[in-house]
């Protein structure tokens, strides 16, 4: 298969100009990808709070681990 045959079926795209500013889309992407706590994060935080309420002496251990 020669390049000419290929180019006849699939003409070159060449230099294509962008027709709109993509910066607003970039900002939206950044906003979407910003790290947000998931339901699992909230659930783990809840479990930790309950655990610390039931076993307050664990606060010292937790602080030591941090």
């Amino acid at each position: 298969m020669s390049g000419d045959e290929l180019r006849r079926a699939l003409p070159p795209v060449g230099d294509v100009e962008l027709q709109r500013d993509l910066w607003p889309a970039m900002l939206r992407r950044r906003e979407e990808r910003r790290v947000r706590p998931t339901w699992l994060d909230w659930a783990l935080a809840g479990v930790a709070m309950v655990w610390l309420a039931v076993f307050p002496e664990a606060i010292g251990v937790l602080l030591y681990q941090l």
Partner: protein
Amino acid sequence: MELLERFARGDVEAFETLFRQYQGYVFAWIVRMVRDRAAAEDLTVEAFWRIWRSRARFDPDREFGAWARRVASNVAVDYLKTDRREVALERDWPARAEAGPEVGQAIREAFGRLPARLRAVATLALIEERPYGEIAEALGISMAAVKTRAFRAARLLRTRLEKMGVRP
């Protein structure tokens, strides 16, 4: 402080300046590889998102355009791995009449089924006729690898077309 240094340190204004300066360049490169304007716009944003995330690894002494094109090429190849459609969108780049409608269709189908890495090189080298050195730099491979992949793509295309009963 230089623009590239400010970008590498996470300055959003520097990133915006670079984005506006290079978005057309990155888009033009991606659209060559994926042959779809709408997808190329999305992929341009994705490329700049990856560029922003990896800003700390960017060496401000390097050329930003070359680095951006490398990231853009990776994004485009990732897209090609998931996209197995025919490559030419008729509304944007209609095939020339002399290709013959059936042969042209068969070539487009076979080309669209090439493995992404071969398809990327074949598109840039055989269709767009970009210099091997430029393709090698953009894809992060050697010039010898570019030549090998272009050759393998052409051979695979010929084999598949023969299986389809088409002799181009």
